[in-house]
């Protein structure tokens, strides 16, 4: 997957988890929780969806890597390069 595909994949997951949120103006370099109503259960949902959709495992120690869209892309790119 390209970086843009990963970015869109994460946004698509968030659109399901946070269906009331407007995502068109999400800033890539700003923490998602500073822009959106996301709590710890939502982040667990993101982790679960990455597992279900892309067979990607995100260990708890790495949850901080999913803070922003940019950091998601950086963290997930090597894991999704062959997807």
């Amino acid at each position, binding site marked *: 997957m390209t970086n843009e595909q990963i970015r869109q994949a994460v946004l698509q997951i968030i659109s399901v*988890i*946070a*269906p*009331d949120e407007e995502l068109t103006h999400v800033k890539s370099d700003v923490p998602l929780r500073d822009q959106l*109503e996301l709590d710890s*259960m939502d982040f*667990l*949902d993101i982790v*679960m969806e990455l*597992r*279900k959709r892309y067979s990607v495992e995100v260990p708890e120690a790495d949850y901080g890597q999913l803070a922003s869209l940019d950091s998601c892309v950086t963290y997930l790119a090597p894991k999704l390069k062959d997807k």
Partner: protein
Amino acid sequence: MNHHRRIVITGIGLTSPNGNTLAEYRANLLKGVSGVVWFETRYMGKVLAGVCTYDPLKYQMKKEVRRGTRAGSISIYCCQEAVADAKLDVPALDKNRVGVYLGITEHGNVETENEIYNISQFNYDTKFWSHHHNPRTVANSPAGEVTLNMGITGPHYTIGAACAAGNAGVIQGAQMLLLDEVDVALAGGVSESIHTFGIFASFASQNALASHSDPTKASRPFDRDRNGIVCSEGGCVFVLERLDHAEARGARIYGEIVGYHMNSDASDFVLPNALRHVECMQTALKRAGIAPQDIDIVSTHATATPLGDIQECQALRTVFADCPKTHFNNTKSFIGHAMGAAGALELAGNLPAFDDGVVHPTINVDHLDPQCEVPNLVLNTPKKLPRVDYILNNSSGMLGINSVVIVKRV
């Protein structure tokens, strides 16, 4: 009696398979409109069920709906509607003094089935089991969702009481008001049970699941050709207050809860016990300080199982042996069996009779089972009475649990 010791109903919120407000529901009960439809369920295909059409997004964000449960969503809708109907000044309410008491037949089966199906798509690997499972399935979940949605900080819990649960929720709310634990009780019952195949499959295995080519004819208590239960979802919540509290704010009063009782059959897992039904109704009448002759409407529990209806009618004939003005009806014939919501919905459907004097009927009785004959059983068309002063609402459930609520016109 001291007005601080009298409990009144000042608001009603409900969703039923044939109505999402009391007015719509009552109108359909008087017009003979059923809410039973064909419903697709996992593993079993189309089954007969009562399905609600309320708008969850009237009071919830999409995320709340996704994260919570159907029972929680129904509870939120009913509580919000009840509070609005009661014209409570919500911002001015002391939220510590509001309690939520919801009867449930069961909770968690829907969510557990969904998770098992979910992991079945991943070769039963439990790492795909959702972290939402526990908060969705704790037994207080439907009532807890209400407190989260409405910012209520008083007590909340559910009352597991099989199909006697709707009345049980009302009784619990009344008792907490009498104990002065709260000033406002949101009390009633809810059910999401149609969203798991298990309830249908279990009734089918028990030979107690209704079948009929026409869904609207499927739920037919007291009819000779009845063949079982139509499962339904739904909810009904009453705003209960002490009379002095209600009068102080000039509230509209639907009726006063003057009598109630619960007891246990202690005789069988599923078969009802007419003697215990009798004792339950008689004890409620005694608590109300009235005679059977004073009751104008008895809202029966009958679910359209061959034996259950007969047992209840035996009990009714015993308690109301010499009661020429007492009339009997059944609401499940319209909406099916709404399980934890059933008792509360059935009571709500009858309360407007205090104003219009009309007893809604039992529909779908083409051939009355002789063993279900009860004097003044109102069949198929509504009946106008000169005046309605007392309604007795009868419910019972598996493991032998009975609940009766008596409401008086105020």
